[in-house]
């Protein structure tokens, strides 16, 4: 289904392959700066013409090495000029490109080299070369390993090795001898040439190489360009690895389509200062990076003096009411409106500046779900952070678009260019699985017909993502379909989604969601956050003595009930949490209830709290409980408390208590 947006006017497609697009941009914008990298402390620029020359030399150099059309080269390294140049060069040569994360293990590399039929490896440095050499005896197709950072390899003399410079030099000579061959190569490229094999992370099985042809790359870049307000010559910081499809679309392809000024960080560790130096306009980060940005602000403010802290808190509060409120369509008191320009000018602007996000008009988070509160934090500062959702196989699906959007959803649907292919459509099956079709379409997994077939159903691509569609056609991501659990009536619900969303509440530290084929409905064991809940209770004059006392307090139980109801609103009625218990004792890794990384040890917990769970489904209202605890010095004791079973009101009324 499609959202009812205004129809987008698509410009005609300028070029049907990435190399043709590159050549076109070079002709239009030759002397403009296309790429920059910080080297020896100074940003060094490369114009379109200079990049083109590099790409040509590398391409001809690769051809000189005997690279044939349709063969595969693999690039392993950080985001650097050489990574991008090599990919463009290989695409010009009509070869297939695989980009690999720099931290891939030799075993994974071996599989990827073998499966992708790699003939040339372009590696950044000694680390990558060593890994490749380690698995090389098992690879019959591999002919050459090229590296661009020779550090530490001054004494390597394996004939399979070659320095990047040599390739460039070979290419330069070939270009002098036969200047037309490069152009002819680009001309011969077709839109259904396989461009990139993008290997999905194989957490359970071997990775699968998703085929992306030229049309598919362009399709996604055009989707983004046409649906989002992308400005020409945007300063873009290339940070996500091109091993991830997102960077293939945003950096490699959109970078040419828009075009961008693509910047490369000096080192992965200098990214934060690089963002600030650049004043990047478009940033695509994973949730982890955004979260660490947010926490860096918070931890700096904890160190600040009381006066600064006061103004910071005031500014954020006003920003929350107005800027974040605007995004979510909430109205506010006029006083907040009057205060906002001052807060924005004197407090929020400098926050944005210090983060280097002053000029960032399109900050995007992609990869996995991020807590709405992190979004709200950035929106309060005036940074309109948007979520992007898609999958490697079928491209970009949705992004928060426009000025007003719902932070709980994944955003609005992209519309694909009509000349690319049939219009891009989606549906949600009975099971709750998202399926899509259209656009350039799913091209299959390389050399894996079995998986390719399994991933499709009557022309629809099965994303494997369980989602829920809101009334206005937006998606809420729940879980992978395989992670859903079934209730006794056969209804499937997403336990991890509920747990994660509950943990987003400041009052809930951990949540154990109950429900399986023996249970008729979903319920929850809640480990309240003692600190925040305690502070909340103090503010309201609620007296309590110990943790069990606090957890079973009526006010606190109502508070938690409201938090659960808020999450319930995002769920279909069958998946909603009906009853919950506040655990009278905190979950503790010392008692093996959690792992050291604070993951729930579910089976153990369900055994330990078996009696409570029985009581929840037994229909009682309260019951006495005794929980053995072990102190750090080895003593044991028993926590005795009367535990209440609380129903959750299905209609959420109260305002969020943040």
């Amino acid at each position, binding site marked *: 289904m499609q959202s009812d947006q205004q129809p987008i006017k698509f410009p005609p497609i300028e070029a049907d392959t990435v190399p043709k697009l590159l050549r076109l941009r070079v002709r239009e914008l030759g002397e403009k700066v296309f790429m920059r990298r910080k080297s*020896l*402390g*100074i940003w060094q620029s490369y114009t379109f013409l200079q990049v083109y020359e590099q790409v040509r030399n590398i391409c001809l150099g690769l051809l000189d090495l005997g690279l044939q059309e349709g063969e595969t080269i693999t690039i392993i390294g950080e985001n650097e000029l050489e990574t991008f140049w090599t990919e463009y060069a290989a695409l010009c040569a009509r070869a297939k490109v695989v980009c690999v994360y720099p931290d891939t293990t030799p075993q994974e590399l071996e599989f990827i080299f073998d499966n992708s039929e790699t003939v040339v490896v372009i590696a950044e440095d000694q680390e990558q070369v060593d890994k490749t050499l380690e698995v090389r005896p098992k690879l019959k197709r591999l002919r050459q390993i090229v590296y661009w950072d020779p550090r*530490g390899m*001054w*004494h390597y003399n394996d004939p399979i090795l070659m320095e990047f410079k040599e390739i460039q030099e070979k290419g330069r000579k070939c270009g002098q001898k036969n200047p037309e061959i490069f152009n002819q190569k680009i001309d011969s490229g077709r839109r259904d040439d396989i461009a990139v094999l993008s290997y999905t992370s194989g957490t359970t099985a071997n990775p699968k190489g998703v085929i992306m042809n030229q049309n598919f790359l362009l399709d996604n870049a055009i989707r983004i360009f046409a649906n989002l307000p992308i400005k020409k010559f945007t300063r873009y910081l290339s940070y996500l690895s091109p091993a991830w499809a997102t960077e293939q679309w945003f950096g490699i392809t959109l970078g040419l389509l828009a075009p961008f000024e693509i910047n490369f960080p000096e*080192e992965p*560790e200098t990214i934060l*200062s690089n963002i600030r130096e650049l004043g990047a306009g478009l940033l695509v980060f994973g949730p982890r990076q955004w979260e660490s940005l947010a926490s860096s602000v918070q931890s700096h403010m904890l160190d600040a003096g009381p006066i600064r802290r006061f103004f910071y808190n005031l500014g954020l509060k006003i920003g929350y009411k107005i800027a974040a409120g605007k995004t979510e369509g909430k109205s506010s008191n006029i006083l907040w409106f009057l205060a906002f320009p001052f807060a924005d000018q004197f407090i929020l602007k400098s926050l944005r500046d210090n983060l280097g996000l002053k000029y960032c008009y399109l900050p995007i988070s992609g990869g996995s779900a991020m807590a709405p509160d992190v979004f709200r934090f950035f929106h309060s500062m005036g940074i309109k952070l948007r979520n992007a959702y898609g999958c490697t196989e079928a491209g970009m699906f949705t992004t928060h678009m426009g000025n007003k959007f719902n932070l709980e959803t994944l955003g609005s649907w992209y519309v694909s260019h009509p000349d690319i292919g049939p219009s891009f459509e989606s549906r949600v099956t009975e099971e709750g699985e998202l399926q899509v079709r259209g656009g350039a379409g799913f091209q299959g997994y390389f050399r894996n017909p079995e998986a390719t077939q399994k991933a499709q159903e009557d022309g629809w691509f099965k994303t494997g993502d369980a989602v829920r569609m809101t009334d206005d056609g937006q998606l809420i991501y729940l879980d992978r379909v395989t992670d859903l659990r079934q209730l006794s009536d056969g209804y499937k619900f997403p336990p991890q989604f509920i747990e994660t969303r509950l943990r987003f509440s400041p009052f809930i530290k951990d949540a154990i969601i109950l429900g399986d084929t023996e249970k008729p409905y979903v319920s929850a064991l809640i480990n309240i956050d003692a600190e925040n809940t305690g502070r909340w209770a103090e503010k309201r004059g609620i007296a309590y003595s110990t943790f069990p006392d606090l957890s079973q307090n009526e006010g606190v139980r109502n508070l938690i009930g409201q938090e659960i109801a808020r999450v319930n609103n995002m769920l279909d009625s069958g998946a909603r949490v009906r009853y919950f218990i506040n655990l009278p004792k905190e979950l503790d890794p010392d008692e093996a209830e959690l792992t050291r990384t604070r993951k729930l040890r579910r089976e153990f917990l369900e055994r330990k709290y078996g009696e409570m769970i029985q009581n929840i489904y037994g229909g009682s209202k309260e019951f006495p409980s005794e929980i053995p605890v072990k102190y750090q010095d080895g003593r044991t004791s028993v926590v005795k408390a009367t535990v209440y079973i609380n129903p959750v009101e299905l209609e959420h009324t109260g305002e969020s208590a943040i």
Partner: protein
Amino acid sequence: MKKEIQTSKQVSLVADKVSLSFGKILVLNNVSFHVYEGEILSIIGPNGAGKTSLLNCLSGFYKPDSGRITYRGEEITKVPIHRRAKLGIGRTFQGLQLFPGMTVINNIMSGRHIRMETNFLQAFLHWPWVHREEISHREVVEEIIDFLEMEAIRHEVVGNLGYGLRKRVDLARALALEPKILIMDEPMAGMNMEEKEDMARFIIDIEEFKSIPIILVEHDMEVVMDISNRIMVLDWGNVIAEGKPEEIRTNPAVIKAYLGEAEEEIQHY
């Protein structure tokens, strides 16, 4: 990673029967050794064996009571410290001798001062050639920053850095001198495993890429055995053994002197 030294051995630095005593304590007793171009020579020995004193004699902090030190065929026994630095003898310190209030860049820059031509007044007026000179020095410093992978801490104040990184700054400053031989006094002391691995890699890279010989005093036997071409063992001011790591490992005199009763320990290496 170990590389066999070429047969055509060019000697860089020679100590010939160097003796040193403080009052009645004989710290170095007729110590003789030589360092070849392009090798890593480690000096090991128990605490108080005289390792640091020997380094101090080489770099000029102490004057030996007797004996000669020759560097690239020239006798330098009586040459003062700053002249030795100019000759190309660089050194890092066991205790850190950095300027904690200055940034990393400025600390490394301070290693360039003996290569600077500008005098105080010119620097104050900052004439164009002074500016040019500063840029050329900054280039050298930036290359060292790149070499030692310190981009992320370039503008940090040294006092805020962890111990391992300070050691790296110390090394960077020694490299800024563009030394022709590098003397390192316990570069790994107080470092964690990862920092040690980094430092070991840097030492090998310096020796391989810049092909300057390195004299290394270090307690971490694993590192010493791993990266040295040759090892010399000192005990109470006497050289008791000298040779390749595998020879030292099995040398009974070394095992006895260095580890005393804990004989099994050295066999691990």
